[in-house]
C-alpha cells in the first residue's frame, strides 16, 4: 500500500454542542419553570482528530531493520514539508521536499533528481502534475478532471505533450465502480471493476483485459469495518501474495505485513502517528 494512502483522517470525534437539547439534569427537573427566553441557536462545534504518520520503519522478513522514512510537518501538523528516507545506519538515502505547488526529489548527497509542479483546485484536488528532470526537461504531465469532487479522468502526456494514456473513473450512485484504461487513440485497453459489500466497503477490485478476461484481482477483508487483509490473486484466482493490516483502536494501520502466498513475510512496515485536532463550526 502506498504510504500516501495512510496519510489522512482515520477517525473523527464530533462534538455536538446543542443548546436547545433537553437534558436530564438537576436544572431540568426544577419544579418551577424558569422564565422562558428566546433561544438563540449556536453553531455546532466539530472537533476532528486527524492522525498523520511521522515515521514508517521497514523490516525484513526476519525482523532485521532495513530502512525508515521520517515525515516532517509544519508546526500544527497540517502540512507535510519533508519526507526523508534513511538506511538502517541512519544515513540519508533520499529526501522529498514539499512546497506549495512543488515536490522535489533529492538524492543522498542532496542533489536534485527531479521535481513536480502541481496545480490544485479550490478543494485541493490535483488538477495537473508536471514532472521535470534536474535539467528542467519536462518528462511527463498528468492531468486530472473532477465532477462533483470525484475524479473522472487521468491523462498522461509525455514531455512533448503527446497523449500517452487516458484513464476514466466511473461511478454508480457516487461510488467508484469501474476504471477504464484507454490508449492514446481512445481505444479500451483494459479495465477494472470494483465490487462493494452492502455496507459500502470495497470487496473486490478485478482487472480485466480488453476481451473481458480476468488478469488479476484483489479482495479485501475487514474486521469491525477496518481493513485487515488484502489478497492479490492471479487470473486463476489463486493467491499470489497477501497484505495484512494491524490497526490501532482508531483504525490506523500501525503494522503492515507483506507476505507471499505461503505466508512467508517479505516485509513489515511499522507506522507511527501523531495527531492534531481540527475545529470547525457548522450552523
Amino acid at each position, binding site marked *: *500500500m*502506498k*504510504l500516501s*494512502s*495512510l*496519510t489522512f*483522517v*482515520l*477517525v*473523527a*470525534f*464530533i*462534538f*455536538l*454542542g*446543542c*443548546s436547545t*437539547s433537553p*437534558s436530564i*439534569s*438537576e*436544572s*431540568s427537573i426544577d419544579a418551577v419553570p424558569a422564565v422562558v427566553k428566546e433561544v438563540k441557536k449556536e453553531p455546532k462545534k466539530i472537533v476532528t482528530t486527524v492522525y498523520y504518520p511521522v515515521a514508517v520503519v521497514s523490516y*525484513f522478513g*526476519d525482523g*532485521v531493520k*532495513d*530502512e525508515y522514512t521520517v515525515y516532517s510537518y509544519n508546526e500544527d501538523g497540517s502540512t507535510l514539508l519533508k519526507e526523508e528516507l534513511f538506511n538502517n545506519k541512519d544515513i540519508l538515502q533520499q529526501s522529498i521536499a514539499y512546497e506549495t505547488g512543488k515536490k522535489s*526529489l533529492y538524492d543522498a548527497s542532496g542533489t536534485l533528481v527531479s521535481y513536480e509542479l502541481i496545480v490544485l483546485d479550490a478543494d485541493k484536488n490535483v488538477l495537473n502534475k508536471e*514532472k521535470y*528532470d534536474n535539467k528542467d526537461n519536462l*518528462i*511527463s504531465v498528468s492531468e486530472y478532471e473532477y465532477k462533483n469532487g470525484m475524479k473522472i479522468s487521468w491523462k*498522461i502526456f*509525455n*514531455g512533448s505533450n503527446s497523449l*500517452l*494514456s487516458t*484513464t476514466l473513473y466511473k461511478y454508480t450512485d457516487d461510488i467508484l465502480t469501474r*476504471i477504464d*484504461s484507454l490508449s492514446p487513440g481512445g481505444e479500451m*485497453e*483494459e479495465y*477494472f471493476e470494483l465490487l462493494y459489500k452492502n455496507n*459500502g*466497503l*470495497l470487496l473486490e*477490485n478485478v*482487472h480485466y483485459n480488453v476481451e473481458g478476461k480476468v488478469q488479476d484481482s*484483489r479482495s*479485501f477483508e475487514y474486521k469491525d*469495518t*477496518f*481493513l485487515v487483509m488484502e489478497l*492479490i490473486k492471479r487470473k486463476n484466482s489463486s493467491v499470489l*501474495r497477501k497484505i495484512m493490516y494491524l490497526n490501532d483502536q482508531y*483504525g490506523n494501520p500501525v503494522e503492515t505485513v*507483506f507476505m*507471499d502466498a505461503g505466508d512467508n513475510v517479505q*516485509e513489515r512496515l511499522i507506522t507511527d502517528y501523531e495527531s492534531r485536532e481540527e475545529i470547525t463550526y457548522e450552523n
Partner: protein
Amino acid sequence: MKTRLIKIITIILVLFLVAASVPANEVSAVWTRLFRRAVSLSQKSNIMASIVEQHNRDMVPVLMEALEEQVGSLENTGDVTVRMQISEYTKMIIKELGRLKASEAAPYIWQIVQAVDEPFLKGEAIIALGKVGARQYIDELNILLRNLNFNLGAIQDQRKNEIVAFSLVIALERLKQPSSYSPLFFASTGWYSSQSGVRAKASESMLTILDDPTEQLMQVTKDSKEYDIKLAALDAGYKSKASDGNKAALAVLSLSEGLQASPINPTEKTQLKSLRVLALNVLEYGSVKPEEAIVYMNKMLISYRTERLFDIDEMIDLFEALGTFSSDASVKAQTEFLAYLTDRKESGLSIDLRISKSSIIAIGNTRNPIGFEELTNVQYSDSWENSVKREAKAALAKLNK
C-alpha cells in the same frame, strides 16, 4: 444552572479509510503499459522514474521485465555516455527491487552481477541480492568475496575491487549465513585500504551473522600459517557472542599455536607474543578455566626457566592468568616455579622482583592450600627481599581465609 449536554459522537470514517486503501491498481497498470510501449532508453528511463516513485509491489513484474531486458545490452554498448545512462537506469531498477525486497527478482539481479564489470552497478546488484534475501546465491557470493580477498587482480583494479567487496560484505551480512563467516573474516584482515571501509564493515558483519563462530575460527587458526591471522581469529572469537567455554577453548588452541612456532624475524616474534598475551587475557577474564590451558601455561613457566623465552610483561600476564586457575594442577605448576625462584635466590642469583612478586600474588589468588608450603618458605627465607616476603605473607593470608 443552565446545563448544556454535549453529545460526543465518534464516527469512524471508514469509507475514507477504504478509499485511501484502494490499491493503485490502475496506476500500476497504466505505467506498466506505458513502459512496454516505450522504445528509446530515454523514454524507458522517464517512465521508470515514475514507476520507482510508486514504490509499489505491483510494479515488481515490470521492474523484472525491464531488468531482464537490460542483461543483454549492458556490455554491448561502446558509447561511454550511453553506457553510463544504461548503468544509471539499471541501478534505478535494481535499487527499487531491493527496496521492495522482491525475492522473485533474485535470478535477474544475479544475471546482472555476472554480466557487468562496472563496480557501482555490480555493487548495487550485489546489495540488492542481500535485500531480496537471495540465499540461493550465497555460495557464489562467498566465492566472489574470497577471490577478492586473495587480491589476485591487477593493481589498477584495486579500487574497483574494494567497491565490489564492500557491497559483498553488506549483502553477506544481510543474508546471515554461517558459511559467509570465513570470507568475511578474511575480508576483515585483508588487503583493503582503511578508506574503503571493507575491513571495518566486515569485522562488524562477522558479529551479526554468527553468534558463536568458534568452530570457524578454530579452523582458521589451525589452517593459517600467518600469525597475524591467528591473532585476528582469536580477537574475533573474543569479541563474539560465543560462550566463555568456547572462547577459552579457542584461547587454549591459540596459546598452543603461539608456543609451537619459533619466530624467524622480529615481526613474527611480536605477532606470536601478541597471540600468547591475548590468549592469556581471554583465559584470565573468562569464567571457564579449562585444565588443558594449564599444560601450555606450565610450558611457558618451564621455557622461562630454561631459556628465558618470554619478556617480563608477558610473564606478568601469565601469572595474572594463572592466578585465576585454582586447580591443584595449576597451583602445583606455580609452586614449582616459585621453588625454582627461591632456589635461585638462595644461590645468590638475581631474580626480577616483578616476576617473583607476580608469581606469589598469583598463588595467593588461587586460594588453594597447596601453595601454603612454598609461600611459607618465601616468607621465612633469609634470601628474599623484605618486600617479597611481605607479598608472601599477604598471599598466605588469602590462603587462610
